[in-house]
């Protein structure tokens, strides 16, 4: 009689352990399946980029013909350069405006600052498609269509509200005492900003940079409309134009897809943490 509960007591942990192991392996298996679903497109891209036209249509085997075609027949380098240039200048401008404005919203009180900030937040809700036509007309009048500057201005206008919102949220987290102490010590607001607030805010700056980089690099609509000249096309727009043409071989398209996706993926892998923070920081409210 006394032995029975003892065995049960000894037996139970093993049963639990077994059950936990089964559960863990099941979970692991499910995660692997999902991972395959998420990674398959990337595998597909690479797998077919290393084929030629006949290998793609069922012959099997691999080759690097399509890569050669991609770089010789298409202005890929030019497009990569355009993308890089536009991203870099846009991000610099967005940072210049959003850090200063964010600091002002968070730390300086002036008339109607609350309302202006509300305006910035409201601007977040304006869908691009609603303003793109007036924007197109305006820039057309200024002669900025098909210039880098035109596209950059649009990207900056689109990216700044959210960036400002993020920066303001971040600066609010910096203690007022620190700023006040600096001002008491005789620093002007400008110097306080440059010497104290700005260096403190680099994590937020990194977040803004990564978010904007991915957004601008991956964008199609703005580039499609404001940079219609193939000379200034970004890689993403060039790719979409290729696919719309339907004449290019699919392996070449896949190689192009991979080339255009790679920089964003690399940035993502390096700055993953900042990207996640940026996505969820929108909830700071």
């Amino acid at each position, binding site marked *: 009689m006394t032995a029975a509960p003892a065995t049960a007591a000894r037996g139970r942990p093993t049963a639990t352990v077994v059950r936990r192991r089964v559960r863990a392996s099941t979970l692991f298996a499910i995660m692997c399946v999902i991972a395959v679903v998420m990674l398959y497109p990337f595998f597909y891209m690479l797998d077919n980029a290393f084929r030629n036209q006949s290998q793609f249509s069922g012959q099997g085997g691999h080759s690097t013909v399509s890569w050669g075609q991609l770089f010789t027949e298409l202005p890929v380098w030019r497009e990569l350069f355009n993308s890089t240039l536009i991203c870099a200048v846009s991000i610099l401008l967005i940072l210049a405006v959003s850090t200063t404005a964010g600091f002002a919203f968070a730390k300086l009180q002036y008339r109607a600052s609350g309302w*202006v900030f509300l*305006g910035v937040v409201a601007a977040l809700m*304006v869908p691009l498609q609603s303003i793109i036509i007036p924007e197109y007309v305006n820039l057309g009048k200024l002669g900025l269509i098909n210039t880098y500057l035109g596209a950059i201005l649009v990207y900056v206008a689109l990216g700044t509200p959210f960036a400002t919102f993020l920066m303001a949220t971040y600066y609010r987290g910096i203690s007022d005492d620190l700023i006040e102490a600096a001002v008491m010590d005789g620093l002007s607001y400008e110097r306080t900003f440059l010497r104290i607030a700005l260096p403190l805010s680099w994590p937020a700056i990194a977040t803004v940079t990564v978010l904007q980089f991915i957004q601008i690099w991956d964008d199609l609509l703005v580039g499609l409309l404001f940079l219609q000249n193939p000379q200034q096309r970004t890689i993403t727009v060039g790719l979409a134009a290729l696919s*719309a043409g339907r004449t290019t071989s699919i392996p070449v398209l896949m190689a192009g897809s991979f080339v255009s996706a790679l920089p964003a993926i690399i940035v*993502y892998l390096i700055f993953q943490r900042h990207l996640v923070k940026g996505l969820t920081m929108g909830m700071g409210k």
Partner: protein
Amino acid sequence: MAVVVALLGIPIAQAIYYSMTNWNGLTATWIGPSTYSTALSDPTFWRVLENNALLLLSIPFAIGIPLGIAALLHEHVRGWRFFRSVYFLPTAVSWVVIGMVAVQFFAYQGLLNKLLADVGLGSFQTNMLAGQRSALVALAITFIWSMLGTNTIIFLTGMSTLDPTLLEAARVDGLHRRQIFLRVTLPLLKRFVQFSFVITVISAFSALFSLIFVMTNGGPGYGTTTLEFFVYQSAFSLGQFGTGALYGIILFVIMVTVGLVQLRLIRSEDGEGW
């Protein structure tokens, strides 16, 4: 500083101003508000709105599946960090690229049909992108796939803010895992669910452009034309800038309405004090 703020504020005010007033776009002649009734009686417009409404049906999946994935990740099984990175990866990739691969996936010789044939459902093989409704389904599936990473991350962040002692208490009280998830975790995650809902709705209305452009170009017919794509089509393919701008304003109104309803919901729930 004030100068900087002005530099920021003016373009935004300008953008709002243009979005509100310039609805007649490039058309040199002033027609007046009657353009709205003309546009609203256009059957194509309603066809397009119907597509938008149907796409909204994908939202439960675009939120439910990531919720499940986040719950799995939150168990912290071996390699969960790796899986997290993998699941989030599509967020970094352009929807142009995603659309490009999706076209191949759904194509007649694509993987989907191959899979169907392999499991003996060969008779179901179709070219999904060729039919109006099936193309919309294909678009919705691609959309759900693209949103998985973002929404999973939002929920995972939410779950990491939960108080572990609360879950422990629920466990001590004898609740099963599923009960804990439904009765404790989910209600606490409400704010995050709402946030992802907003993001998903906004994306469904205003971020699908690249996907549509690459996958179907709005077709077949108007089968996959959503309002945002219709704006582009009207203005830049058909040259009707006024009509395009008008649809843009309608889109804007819809987005603001969604935003306000959302805000209302959050406010009223805060009033109840959870």
